[in-house]
């Protein structure tokens, strides 16, 4: 490693102030600090620091997402096998699925990397590792058949509009990966919703996600409808296991749960947001179940435990709602924020069947309201303090 280190030290002057490549110092710094831990030292008290840094935080989120990638690839193979009537081994399915996923990952990272470097160079700051998580999340919330040019466009939109125009990581209002998904959802809806995009299948094959099933038929019982689908196994347990059509990373709920536990145990994601979302979803679903007889809307009959395992709810809550910058910053605020995300997910799914994927919109909406929630929590805190002063 000494050789590598001395090589880096040799090229360092080229990138430092006055060197011919000084503009590209952020690239040099990113490479160097990736290869070797940073040499920075504390300048004043506290003279010692915890070993955690943002790089580690971000890498761990990426680690938590890797199982979703592996299962996502296998599931693409399985679903396509069902559509074509082909039997493949797990490994073959994985290779088949990677054929879809790898190009999406490559396009996302190349596009995201270019924007991150561009902004780091113009703003003269280090390359922030946040884009690693954004770029890891984007492919996971895409349907397998998404055209690559759209991936590139969405990544650009997510990173530039979702993050950089606000000042970059730490200042953004919306989760950039969700902004990317929302961009496609509204600008090219046919590529990210409907019946054709979830499965790589022959022309004319229709493979809707489970959420679309109760959304299109009125005056029925959602669970009965799901069980009557013969093309896919939409039983509750199979939706947990995830061999169903859906976005690449969202289908297997067990792996998402493991990821959630991992992020909670490592103290990186807020368990309050996750717990709040679960409470909000359950409470609202119970309410809609009670109101179901009053309406012809089948979605209202969907029980809470089905809502939980359908669509991107768990994936969104665990990996996107908990994003620390765009969620509420106070603990009480995190509860409220979580509860409202859970609640809004059910409301959007039920009230507007045109948007079966309510989680994405619920999180984006609450991203916008998170500062307001914090504002009220902080005002209440300040009021309590003023009352104490007045005593």
């Amino acid at each position, binding site marked *: 490693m000494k050789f590598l280190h001395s090589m880096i030290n040799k090229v360092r002057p080229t990138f430092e102030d006055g060197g011919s490549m000084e503009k590209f110092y952020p690239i040099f710094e990113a490479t160097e600090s990736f290869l070797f831990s940073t040499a920075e030292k504390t300048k004043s008290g*506290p003279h010692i620091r915890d*070993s955690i840094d943002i*790089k580690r935080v971000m890498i761990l989120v990426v680690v938590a997402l890797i199982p979703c990638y592996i299962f996502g690839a296998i599931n693409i193979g399985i679903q396509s096998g069902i559509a074509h009537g082909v039997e493949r081994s797990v490994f073959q399915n994985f290779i088949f699925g990677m054929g879809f996923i790898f190009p999406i990952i490559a396009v996302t990272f190349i596009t995201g990397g270019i924007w991150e470097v561009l902004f780091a160079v113009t703003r003269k700051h280090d390359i922030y590792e946040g884009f690693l998580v954004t770029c890891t999340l984007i492919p996971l919330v895409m349907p397998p058949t998404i055209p690559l040019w759209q991936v590139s466009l969405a990544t650009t939109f997510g990173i530039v509009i979702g993050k950089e125009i606000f000042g970059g990581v730490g200042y953004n209002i919306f989760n950039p990966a969700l902004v990317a998904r929302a961009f496609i959802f509204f600008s090219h809806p046919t590529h990210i919703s409907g019946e054709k995009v979830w499965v790589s299948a022959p022309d004319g094959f229709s493979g809707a996600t489970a959420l679309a099933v109760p959304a299109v038929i009125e005056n029925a019982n959602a669970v009965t409808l799901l069980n009557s689908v013969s093309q896919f196994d939409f039983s509750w347990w199979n939706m947990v296991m995830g061999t169903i059509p859906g976005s690449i990373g969202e289908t297997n709920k067990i792996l998402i749960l493991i990821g959630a536990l991992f992020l909670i145990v490592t*103290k990186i994601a807020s368990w309050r947001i996750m717990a709040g979302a679960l409470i909000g979803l359950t409470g609202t679903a119970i309410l809609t179940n009670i109101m179901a007889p009053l309406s012809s809307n089948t979605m209202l009959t969907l029980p809470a435990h089905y809502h939980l395992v359908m669509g991107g709810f768990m994936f969104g809550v665990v990996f996107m709602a908990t994003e620390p910058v765009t969620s509420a910053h106070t603990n009480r605020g995190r509860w409220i924020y979580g509860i409202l995300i859970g609640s809004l997910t059910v409301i959007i799914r039920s009230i507007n069947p045109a948007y079966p994927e309510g989680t994405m919109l619920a999180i984006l909406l609450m991203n916008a309201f998170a500062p307001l929630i914090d504002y009220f929590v902080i005002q209440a805190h300040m009021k309590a303090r003023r009352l104490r002063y007045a005593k």
Partner: protein
Amino acid sequence: MDAGGGLGFKLTCVCLSGYVNQNPVKIHLTKGHNIRISGIPKREIISIGDPEKVALKPVEFRGIKPKLMVKEHDDVKLGQPLFFDKKNPDVSFASPGCGTVSAIHYGPKRIIKYIEITLKGEDSVQHGSVRFHDIGSVNRADVITRILSGGLWPLLKQRPFNMIADPNVAPRAIFISGYNSAPLTVDLDLALSEQTGPFQAGLNVLRRLTDGDVHLTVSEGTVSETLVNADGVRIHYVNGPHPAGNVGIHIHHIDPLNPGETIWTISAQHVVTLGTFFTTGEYDPSTIVTVGGPSVKNPIHIKGRSGMQISEMLKDRLQDGTSRIVSGDVLTGTEMEASGFMGYYDSTVSVIPDSDDREFLGLLRPGTSDSRYSLTNAFLSSNSDSYDFTTQTSGSERPMVPIGTWEHVLPMDIFPNALYRAILAEDFDEMEGLGLLECDEEDFALCSFSCPSKIDVGAVIRKGLDMMEKEG
């Protein structure tokens, strides 16, 4: 008039004859963290004899305008004032030793960095002494005059702003912490074990300074007779990890500071200094200090003196390799040369390795407790019982990514994120509303320690306090 006077007299009598410790508060804290750094000072006090040089450092007293009262080569006695504060000319600063002013060091803009005294002889300035039992009958103005003329007023600090107390203000209460929870600091049970008399005398002096209470907060585990049997003060018990010993945390939980109010604080060892000064009429600069940290061989308690040269304490105690010497604890102390001098309010010298080692692909390693220490569980193992901390930051500064590390180590009813943002936005109403005046940077040191974005939260709190002070 008469009735009022009589009542006051009666109350005084009651207090003196048998002060009942009213409503002791038990503070149980769960937030915070005891940093398990290696090199913990042994529970044993050794004597190293008198140092060659001592110094007083005007720069470390925030907010004063020092005016020198001595020149280089002057002979000075122990306790003789070396300089005073032009803003408050009554406040002077006693010499920590008898000898010759061997050097006065200036910094940029003629800031007086330190006044160095080469020790020689035992002469000290004599002030009138008061018998132990008579301290209670000295009136407040007289007590203040005595402390001021002895040059020991700077021992008293005030909140908000944590600066030298203003003698013209009557504090609502006085707080003393009988518990050092910061890493590697002096074990007060040990340091005060033979100081029961002077400590009690000091407490009696402090009781004359306020109409309110004198609060002494001790650790629930303390066995010190000096502390638990202290008379005439309200004793409270605290249990929990650092910053449980910080006086700011005690004030917050026992009797929070409201706008417009003033509370004074003094360190427990300085209470002894004050008590000794009253009963003997002389300034006794001796104090118990610790040397500790990963770079120290045989970390231990030392019977030293205020402002002593650090190299004397570290003689034959440093491990090989480059290291950083800190006057004060590793969280809030100040970096010093070995030839430098201990700070006025410091009683710890910490030494940590100044390592340049860089780990190859450290980012991707699982991390073991040999090379990692974290309050998060982001590493395979990071909970060593005795960790060799270095000066490395282990990461670069980033914008705030609030994953809850700050709240986790701040045992106060304060929103650190919101306060941090209010200070950066210079929003004074919000700063005050969020309780900035109850805060001090030392209480936020662990927030900086644990922050993944490597933000120096304490420095921002200080900046906010300075802005508030300037605004008035």
